[in-house]
C-alpha cells in the first residue's frame, strides 16, 4: 500500500484546511506522500511538510499548474500516481474537477466524497443528498478517492517530512485560463469556520443580507446561504451550502429564513449544534434544529446581534 494525497493549491496558496483534513482521512490507512503541484510551491510544501503522518512531499513546480486546470493536472498525474495504490484529494471543486479525469484516463472509477475509510478497499459515502450512506468496496488497482473534509479534523503540525522536487512533463493544448473572480473576505472560510450564519429566501434582498452578515461578524462566523438566496442574487454562489454547494459541519450553524429542504440539510446536518430562526413554525428546519425560534427574522436577528 502506498498512499498519495493531492494538496489543493490555488495560484501558489495552499488550501490548508482542505489538504490537512484529506491527509487526516488518508492517514487512517498509513503514512502518506503529498503532491504539491502549482506555479509556486515553496510556501505550500513547507506547510505540508509539517503535517503529521506525511512522509514525503513531492514538488511539481510549473506555471502550467497555477490554476489546476484539469487537463494540465491530470496529464502529469497519470505518470506520478502509477506507483501508488491510493490517491486522495479533497472533494472540493479542485478534487471533483481533476480526480474523475484521471480516472477516465487510466480507466479507474472514482470513489467520490467519502465520509469514512473502513479499510484499504472499503469506504462509506453519502448518496441521495445524504439521505443514505453507502458502503462500497473497490476492485480497482489504484483507488481514487475524494474526501468529504467536513467529516475529518485537521492533522497536528508536528511532522517533518522530506521535500523533493519531481520532474514531469505536461502540456495543455485544450483549455486556457481567462480570469478568476474570487471573493476575498476577512471572515473565516465557510468550510472550516467554527460558526456559520446562513440566510435563505426569507431574507428578501441583497441589502437585507447585511443583517445576516452583521450577526456573523459579531460571532466571528462565516456566512452561508441557501440556493434560493444565491439564485435570487442575495448572496454569491460560493456561499451556497447544500447537496450541490458546500458541506459544512461547524460547532454552531445558525439558519435564518431557511425552510430546510433536503438539499440544504445535506450540507449542514452534521453541524454540532443547529439553531433555526423562521417565522413558520411548520418549517422542516425545526425538525433538525437543536434550538428554534419562531419569529420574524427582521425583528429577531438585529436584537440578537445587539444582545450578544
Amino acid at each position: 500500500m502506498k498512499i498519495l494525497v493531492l494538496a489543493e493549491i490555488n495560484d501558489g496558496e495552499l488550501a490548508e484546511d482542505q489538504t490537512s483534513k484529506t491527509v487526516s482521512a488518508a492517514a487512517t490507512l498509513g503514512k502518506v506522500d503529498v503532491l504539491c503541484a502549482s506555479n509556486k510551491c515553496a510556501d505550500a510544501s513547507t506547510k505540508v511538510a509539517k503535517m503529521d503522518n506525511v512522509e514525503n512531499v513531492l514538488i511539481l513546480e510549473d506555471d502550467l499548474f497555477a490554476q489546476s486546470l484539469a487537463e494540465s493536472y491530470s496529464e502529469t498525474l497519470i505518470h506520478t500516481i502509477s506507483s501508488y495504490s491510493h490517491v486522495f484529494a479533497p472533494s472540493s471543486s479542485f478534487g471533483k474537477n481533476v480526480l474523475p479525469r484521471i480516472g477516465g484516463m487510466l480507466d479507474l472509477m472514482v470513489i467520490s466524497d467519502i465520509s469514512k475509510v473502513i479499510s484499504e478497499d472499503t469506504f462509506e459515502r453519502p448518496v441521495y443528498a445524504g439521505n443514505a450512506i453507502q458502503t462500497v468496496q473497490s476492485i480497482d488497482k489504484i483507488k481514487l478517492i475524494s474526501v468529504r473534509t467536513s467529516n475529518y479534523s485537521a492533522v497536528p503540525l508536528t511532522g517533518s517530512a522530506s521535500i523533493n522536487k519531481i520532474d514531469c512533463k505536461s502540456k495543455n493544448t485544450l483549455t486556457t485560463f481567462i480570469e478568476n473572480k474570487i471573493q476575498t473576505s476577512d471572515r473565516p472560510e465557510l468550510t472550516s469556520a467554527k460558526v456559520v450564519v446562513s440566510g435563505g429566501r426569507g431574507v428578501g434582498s441583497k441589502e437585507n443580507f447585511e443583517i445576516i452578515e452583521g450577526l456573523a461578524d459579531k460571532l466571528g462566523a462565516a456566512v452561508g446561504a441557501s440556493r434560493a438566496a444565491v439564485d435570487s442574487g442575495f448572496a454569491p454562489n460560493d456561499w451556497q451550502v447544500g447537496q450541490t454547494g458546500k458541506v459544512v459541519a461547524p460547532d454552531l450553524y445558525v439558519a435564518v429564513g431557511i425552510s430546510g429542504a433536503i438539499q440544504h440539510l445535506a450540507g449542514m446536518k452534521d453541524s454540532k449544534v443547529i439553531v433555526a430562526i423562521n417565522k413558520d413554525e411548520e418549517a422542516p428546519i425545526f425538525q433538525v434544529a437543536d434550538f428554534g425560534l419562531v419569529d420574524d427574522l427582521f425583528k429577531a436577528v438585529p436584537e440578537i446581534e445587539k444582545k450578544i
Partner: protein
Amino acid sequence: MKILVPVKRVLDYNVKARVKADGSGIDLTNVKMSMNPFDEIALEEAIRIKEKGNAEEIIAVSIGVQQNQETLRTALAMGADRAILVVASDDVHNDIEPLTVANILTAITFKESPSLILCGKQAIDNDFNATAQMLSAKLNWSQATFASEIEVKKDVVRVTREVDGGLQTIEAKMPAVISVDLRLNEPRYASLPNIMKAKRKPLEEISPADLGVEMTQRLKIIKTKEPDSREAGLILENIDQLVEKIQENVGG
C-alpha cells in the same frame, strides 16, 4: 454542429429517498422518477444554443432501463431532435457507474461526432459528479465543469465555472465536454403541442453490446443504511433564551 446531452432518470428530487429494510439500497418501486435536474439544465442550454443558431441538432441519450424512454420523451418534448436509449439493465435498482456510462457515451460520440457534449454536473441519486470528466478524458477533449455561463464562439467555448472561491472563466477548445451547474439557466416546461410532437420524433433503442461496450462494475455496493438522524430540539420562548444558547455554543 451537433450537441449531445446525456440525461439520467432518477428519483424525483421532491421525493424523500427510503432505504430498503434489508440494506440493499434505495426503494425505487412505485416512486416518482424524473430527469436529473442538472441534466434538464444541460438540455435547456443545448436548446438555447440551437435557438441562437449555433447548433443544428440535439441528441438526447439515456442509459438505464427500458422506462428511461419516458425521460427521453420529456427531452424530445423540451426540444431535443432525436433520442438514443441504451438499455443497459432490466432492474432500476441497478445503478450504472459513471465509468461505464462514460464508456457508452464515448462509443456514441464516435458514431455521432457531436462538437459539444453538455452533461449535468452530478446525478442527484449517486452524487458521484464524475461522468463528464471521465468522458472528456476518454475522448481526450477539453473539459469545463460546473458551468454557470456558456458562450459558444467559433472554435472555442467560453465557460464561467462555479468554483469554491467564486467564479473562474476558461476557454475550452471545441470539441468539448461541459458539465453544468444550477445557475446556468431555468429549464422550460414542455408545452402540450410539443409533448404531442415529441411522440413522433425518432427514438432509437440499442444495447451496450451494440456499441461494443462491456458492462463493468468497479465499486461493489456492500450495504446502504440510513444516516444518523437528528432529533428535533427545543422551540425557545424568546430571543433572550436564544442569545443564551448561541453564547453557550460559540467557541464551545
